[in-house]
């Protein structure tokens, strides 16, 4: 019998085996896009009548700063990050890369052995970062009972780069050995991953497009006391231009240009610097924005959806989530994508530009004047409904509902 009603009482009554257990993994070695995407999925699943409880396995402590709904919790691992020389390394602990990877792998395996999820959704890397998930995956496979899903964002890089990476990591073998399904959080009409990346027949047979994840759903997960509404309450009247730079680690140039850009006289600006922007850079931005100016700089708002909803225009970097925020909320948006080391952001934004959904500025062309000119140009709201499949979230709930039924059927037989 599935019980979605009682919560507190059930919590104290010992283990509850009727819950659908779902685990999400994200390596989080660069930025917060992976964990934010997983969290949106987790929130949606937790709210759906699936009676699910969800464990987020995240690669960075920052994951714990996002508000989590009931029945969702996270385990965060000691972090790995890309150093200034481009090499990945332990972010804080003085351990070698090999040591921290085995520490993380050991913890991940323990977590999945203990939690024994009905479904595991792995973000982007089929074997986890540096193959850290492999011991856990092979254990889960040996045990059976866990449906393993690889979740991919639509575009990862140029075809050439992806094919090489894919081969180097022997992802085909990983998918053959460990995965039941592949979900692509995208729209085949925008980017046909199988064709563009020439995925093998095996891979293609497990793959389906869920549709893009409509970011307006995030509004449902905002409480009245959260930072978003609190910030909203302090904003002046007038047209609002929102500038976001993702996690913030490489957002300085865009934020600086925005602060220096001429705003229309009836508008004010808001910069979200991101929790991973170094403090000295944040200070620099705040100095430039000055006191009493028309641009405010905020370090971090864990769930900025209310600010996106309020904004009249958007200037943003081109991460998956930011771009989808722009497209979902539909206000005129200018994307200034990252073009190094991957072309992913540029490619996605360019496809969406071709559909008339966003405007695009190459980072080499970035200047306050160019931003000002874009802001001065009249633009219409671009609602994507017929041009883009944004139905990813309800479709994933459907997939889990099916899953739940087949588990119930198996248990009954």
């Amino acid at each position, binding site marked *: 019998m599935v019980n979605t009603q009682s919560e507190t009482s059930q919590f104290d009554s010992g283990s509850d085996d009727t819950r659908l257990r779902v685990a999400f993994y994200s390596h989080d070695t660069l930025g917060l896009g992976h964990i934010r995407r997983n969290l949106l999925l987790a929130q949606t699943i937790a709210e759906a009548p699936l009676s699910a409880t969800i464990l987020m396995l995240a690669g960075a402590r920052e994951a714990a700063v996002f508000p989590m709904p009931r029945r969702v919790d996270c*385990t965060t691992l000691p972090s790995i990050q890309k150093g200034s020389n481009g090499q990945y390394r*332990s972010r804080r*602990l*003085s351990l070698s890369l090999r040591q921290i990877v085995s520490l993380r792998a050991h913890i991940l395996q323990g977590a999945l052995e*203990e939690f024994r999820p009905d479904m595991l959704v792995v973000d982007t890397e089929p074997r986890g970062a540096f193959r850290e998930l492999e011991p856990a995956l092979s254990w889960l496979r040996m045990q059976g009972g866990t449906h393993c899903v690889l979740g991919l964002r639509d575009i990862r890089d140029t075809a050439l780069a992806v094919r090489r990476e894919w081969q180097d990591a022997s992802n085909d073998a990983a998918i053959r050995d460990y995965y039941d399904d592949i979900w692509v959080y995208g729209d085949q009409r925008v980017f046909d991953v199988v064709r563009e990346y020439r995925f093998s027949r095996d891979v293609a047979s497990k793959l389906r497009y869920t549709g893009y994840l409509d970011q307006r759903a995030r509004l449902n997960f905002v409480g009245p006391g959260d930072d978003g509404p609190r910030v909203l309450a302090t904003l002046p009247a007038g047209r609002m231009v929102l500038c976001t730079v993702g996690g913030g680690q490489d957002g300085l140039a865009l934020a600086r240009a925005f602060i220096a850009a001429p705003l229309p006289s009836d508008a004010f600006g808001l910069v979200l610097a991101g929790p991973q922007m170094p403090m000295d850079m944040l200070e620099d931005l705040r100095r430039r924005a000055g006191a009493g100016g028309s641009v405010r700089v905020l370090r971090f708002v864990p769930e900025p959806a209310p600010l996106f909803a309020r904004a009249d225009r958007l200037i943003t970097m081109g991460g998956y989530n930011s771009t989808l925020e722009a497209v979902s909320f539909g206000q005129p948006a200018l994307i200034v994508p990252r073009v190094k080391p991957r072309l992913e952001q540029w490619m996605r934004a360019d496809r969406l530009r071709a559909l008339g959904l966003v405007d695009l500025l190459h980072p080499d062309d970035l200047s306050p004047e160019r931003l000002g000119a874009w802001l001065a140009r009249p633009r219409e709201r671009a609602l994507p409904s017929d041009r883009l499949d944004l139905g990813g979230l309800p479709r994933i709930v459907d997939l889990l509902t099916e899953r739940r039924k087949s588990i119930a059927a198996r248990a009954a037989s």
Partner: protein
Amino acid sequence: MTPATSARAGLRQRRFAIFTHDAYGLGHVRRSTRILRALADRDPRAALLLITGSPATHLLRELPPNADTLKLPTIVTSGSDGTRPPTLDIGVAELASFRGELTRRAVELFEPDVLLVDNFPLGTRLELLPTLRDLRRTSTRAVLGLRDVVDPPDKVRRDWERDGLFGVIERYYHRVLIYGVPEVLDAVAAYGLSEGIASRVAYCGYVTETTPSSRTPAQLRRELGLGDRFLLATVGGGGDGRPVLEAFLGAIERMAGWPALIVTGEFMSAEDRAALARVAAGRSSLMLKDHITDLPALMSAAELVVAMGGYNTSAEILATGVRAVLVPRVWRSGEHGSRGKTGFDAEQLVRVEGLARLGLVDMVDPRELSAETLQAAIERALRRPRTAAGGALRLDGAARVADHLLDVAAGEKGAAA
């Protein structure tokens, strides 16, 4: 700069892990981060791992650069305002074993020289036994860190007896470090520790911030604009602070409107905050804030502080030497509303009685709390001179704990006092 990657054997890089209980408030985590900072000061090359289920969001900013965290699923089941932090819904027993297994594995591979366990010898729900058992086969040594007052002594004796914790300490812990002083509570006598354990006990003094603020008290008073003499009222996180603040509002009204700053705390419910704001509305020289960043500095600037009796607030009061009237919490967080016998929790009472005995603070028994009793206590306290910081009590607890941990890592046995 890349972190040291050389073999540990060659350069003897130290590793320390702290397992910290994740209560709803931030006291435990804050003590642990202070200890980690003290360790980092002494050994910037050491690798420091904090294992906790605390969802505290500012944790990374407070940790030294050579510390990272393993966050466990959170296990706190009730918050002071009735809400719960996010929690996996798999039942407490399974959650505890889950946390235990993650910790065991992390310690197994991280191989710290020392594992410091905060306040609960077997963790929040006895989940540490597998970890401690494993340690006997490795070179990691376990050290237990206890708050000045773990709980009222009779409760500690009962709980530890029930859960076999005296035996656990005897068997697994190399040292027992107390983040307090025997003048407030003589833990050895009060908890009835055996000679075997007593010989490993060391009192380290209060773990608190002793670095002076960048702003002088005079500067702060100017910024606040409350005049030269003002009262400060703070109730920690604020989840159950409304009765104290209501009594405080009543007391200052009777005292011809002394200027005052009231800090409601980040966990106070919107309803409680609104109720207080209604009472405060329209009064002059009264400031109400959700939270402030530099509480100790404000304490230094204030004439007197009214507070509850949490560890951090009490230690900060000692460190600043400000006059204080304390109204300790005697009901468990979240259960003060019912005031039932079951929720009685006298940890703060024991602490505040101890400090009052030493003449360092004044106390109002919460069962006698009213505007009148609080007013009388405030007026009495205002007639006394400020004490020197800490009186005679030690406030460099974090440094002393760090020294002990380095000492244990170096293979020293026993607790040199």
